[in-house]
């Protein structure tokens, strides 16, 4: 199982990549999550442009048999949705930390980043 060290993680199995200037973050689901879900067939995100609080739902991800909610790892404005997932949701399975990213958030409470898990802590949790 692959958990890149430069990312931060949540107990809900999302990863967070903070931009160099610290103003925004890219979010997706982890390798562990995509493997648990199996073939992903639909990523439904209709919160683009909305301010969404930490731990609130920003969308859903559907595998063949299951629906899972997606939770904001930190508060902010949902600035962008990865539109490649509309036609190719399987990118989440194939490349969860790259092409399978889900949203970009403009951060409103950067201090919340400190509450996220390190790769090591997340690996321990899923282990």
């Amino acid at each position: 199982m692959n958990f890149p060290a430069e990312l931060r993680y949540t107990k809900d199995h999302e990863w967070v990549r903070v931009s160099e200037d610290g103003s925004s973050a890219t979010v997706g689901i982890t390798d562990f999550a995509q493997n648990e879900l199996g073939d992903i067939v639909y990523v439904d995100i209709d919160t683009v442009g909305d301010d969404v609080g930490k731990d609130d739902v920003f969308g859903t991800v559907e595998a063949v048999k299951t629906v899972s909610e997606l939770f904001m790892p930190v508060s902010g404005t949902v600035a962008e949705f990865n539109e490649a997932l509309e036609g190719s949701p399987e990118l989440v399975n194939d490349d969860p930390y790259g092409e399978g990213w889900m949203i970009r958030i403009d951060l409103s409470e950067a201090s919340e980043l400190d509450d996220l898990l390190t790769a090591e802590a997340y690996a321990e949790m899923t282990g």
Partner: protein
Amino acid sequence: MQTTPLHDIHVGLGARMMEFAGFDMPVHYGSIIEEHHAVRKAAGMFDVSHMGEVFASGPNAEAFIQQLVTNNVTQLVDGQALYTVMCRPDGGIIDDLLVYRIREGFYMLVVNASNIATDFAWMQENNSAGAELGDFSDQMGLIAVQGPAAMEVVSRVAGFDLTGLPFYRFMRPEPGAFMDCEKIILSHTGYTGEPGLEIYCEAERAAEIWSAVAAAGESDGLRPTGLGCRDTLRLEAGYCLYGNDLTGDTNPLEAGLGWLVKLEAGDFIGRDALVKAKADGLTRRLVAFTVEGRGIPRAGCEIVGPDGTIIGNVTSGTQSPTLGIGIGMGYVRNEPEFRKPGSEIGIQVRNKVLPAVVRRPPLHK
């Protein structure tokens, strides 16, 4: 949790295992979608040993089954199987099942895993005809080989040709004629919408047969397939699942299974209630539908009419791997504008209404 005789094989193949009907069963061996396509294009092999097998025998076996189920078993010849349901006195479905006529006075009834105990108890309580009943579910294995290449693959394992076996017919090779098995049933039946064979065997022979079929089919693209794609395949084909589309609260007429109900073939449990339901007019009907656009219907979602009023509920839903869109089945109010193929309905999924169209199954063709 119970296990099937093939449990170790599934674990060895790295299957994702899940509890189903009290059994630890394989959901997939890597990808539900790839397994689904394998069954549509080549072949897949399913362990369905969790299914129940009850044998009814003796001079009154036929009379016993005839009053138990809605279909007409007196029409069966040796080597023929029949799909049917059995109902409560109020017409609610206890289970859907297959009746195999092995020979006069000797039948096998194949029931859903989740219902084995209640079905067998029901059969014993309603056996005034005096058939001899035995539940052999734990002693039998069942492997379903399904897909366009399935008949040829199993023919290679058998060493004789099975490709001409008609749908809903089965054969019982002589002892020793199929992999040295003492008892075996090869049945052209299935739950995928593809041709294929269901191989009933003694539990202790299941692993050998599984391995032989896997080896014989490898070059054809046959692969092990789990319950995940069994569900997507059956839903594309428009086959009902007990517990979802059929329950004790639904009768076979509203479930679209009127073709299994032979009111003229004599009395059976639930007949009076079904006669009355027919005379009174059905209040709802099971329909299949496809979603137009994005979104996946799920069991429990409400179905709405064009004006937004609730007209029913989804009982099964998934993403169709063949079509790449959401598909499902559900009950709608029995009005032509909701139930006829082509009717436009809506599926309430979270905060959205997905536009959908009622279709006559199979949905994948």
